[in-house]
């Protein structure tokens, strides 16, 4: 924050390059960075995945635990998404409880997963009003090189897609967890795509240097349900700049195309 000169020079360079449709790292404005997904890397978790978007590196783990339902949804399990910006991921991250950025990230990822109706929480109920499965989705940012929302959303999705739910027997008021697993009851699949606006251009999958000089970003999540219907299920503008209505609609169009591209990378058996 103390030095405002470097960002403004960088911003000018990025905008100039974008005039000819190019970016600092050689991509076109609508290119994603290389996306790598690995699943089942933490055997003690019921599901886990690491995702890289270029050098951005994120891990998500899923744990199932028996707990109480919310009073207003006694017949439904609970999904809880948290994110930690662990300090090895960036010289700017500090230890301590999640700040507004980590909280926003977790809540945006949560909305994508929740609103798509990915997880069939009605099937996570064990004893109505008393005991349900809680799905803890924990995100750790391991290397912050831009576009944490898309990487975190994809890692959380892949961890859930590949997770296994312990089988449980209910006898009276007691729940006995067996040493067997059933698949997690999933429905629609949400994919999140973020674009940065810099000047009057939209940049798909912004890098850290693009984020540092952007006006604002727009994240859009698309859900594909079991009838192959594609819908918008979540959206979030971030940053202190503005969008024209035309830019807003254009961003949503681009995000839709890119979500289809990302969807093809999902662990096989899923799409």
């Amino acid at each position, binding site marked *: *924050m*103390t030095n*405002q000169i470097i960002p403004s020079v960088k911003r000018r360079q990025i905008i100039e390059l974008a005039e000819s449709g190019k970016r600092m790292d050689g991509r076109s404005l609508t290119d994603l960075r290389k996306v790598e997904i690995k699943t089942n890397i933490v055997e003690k978790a019921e599901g886990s995945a690491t995702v890289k978007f270029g050098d951005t590196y994120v891990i998500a783990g899923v744990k199932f635990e028996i707990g109480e339902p919310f009073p207003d949804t006694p017949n439904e399990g609970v999904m809880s998404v948290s994110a930690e910006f662990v300090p090895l991921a960036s010289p700017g991250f500090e230890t301590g409880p999640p700040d507004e950025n980590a909280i926003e990230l977790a*809540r945006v990822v949560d909305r994508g997963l929740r*609103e798509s109706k990915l997880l069939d929480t009605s099937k996570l109920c064990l004893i109505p009003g008393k005991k349900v499965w809680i799905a803890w989705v924990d995100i750790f940012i391991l290397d912050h090189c831009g576009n944490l929302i898309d990487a975190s959303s994809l890692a959380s999705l892949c961890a859930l897609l590949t997770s296994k739910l312990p089988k449980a027997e209910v006898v009276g008021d007691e729940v006995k967890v067996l040493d067997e697993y059933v698949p997690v009851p999933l429905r629609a699949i949400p994919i999140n795509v973020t674009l940065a606006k810099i000047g009057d251009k939209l940049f798909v999958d912004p890098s850290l240097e693009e984020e540092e000089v952007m006006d604002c970003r727009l994240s859009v999540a698309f859900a594909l349900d079991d009838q192959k219907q594609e*819908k918008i299920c979540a959206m*979030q503008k971030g940053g202190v700049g*503005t969008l024209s*209505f035309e830019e807003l609609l254009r961003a949503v169009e681009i995000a839709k195309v890119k979500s289809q591209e990302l969807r093809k990378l999902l662990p096989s058996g899923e799409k």
Partner: protein
Amino acid sequence: MDKKLITEDGRRLDGRRFDELRPIKFQIGVLKNADGSAYVEWGRTKILVGVFGPRESHPKHLAMPDRCLIRARYHMAPFSVEERKSPAPSRREIELSKVIREALEPAIFVELFPRTTIDIFAEVLQADGSTRCAAISTAALALADAGIPMRDLVSSVAVAKVDGSLVLDVMDAEDKLGDSDMPLAMMPSKNLVTLIQMDGLLTHEEFVKSVELAKKGCMEVYAKQKEALDSHFRIASKEEV
């Protein structure tokens, strides 16, 4: 989910048509200590906003050499909702504070006040849906009351899909039982979006229509904001005479 949110004759639970705002009553300059303040009764949603600044940044290392720091806090009274809310800030309040700040900041000439801070505090006294939209619209008036130079007001409203229809200015029951919620804020005379969030399931077509409806709503909120400012400054200038 059995409850019908739209009656047979196309009216909503409180009798509104699909594209109708709730009664909105802004009051400007309601607090003595704050540099600017405004209060809104937006249907049953009641919010008080106070603004301090530009003032010295504290702690000092937050000060920025080339602009003013904007801080915003969205905070709910424990008694503002059905179940008492714990006084500690929830994750929801922290996220909303961030998006409210980002919705207002584009309208403020931050370059004019380097090394200072403007604090925007929104206290929700009663929450009945669309509180972030009401907070943003009211905060814009409090900023004006504080005499802070702005590019434009910021006007905000939410659109929901309930029982298959898109409706303007979401109230609590519609938010809880509806299929989607999309708050949007804009600088009305600049035609620029400063906030958009969405959750729920919308087809592309529904989304485009939602944006149109939100824009119409924002323009109506804008008219009410200007009216409130006019009447406030008319009274203020009379008092000075």
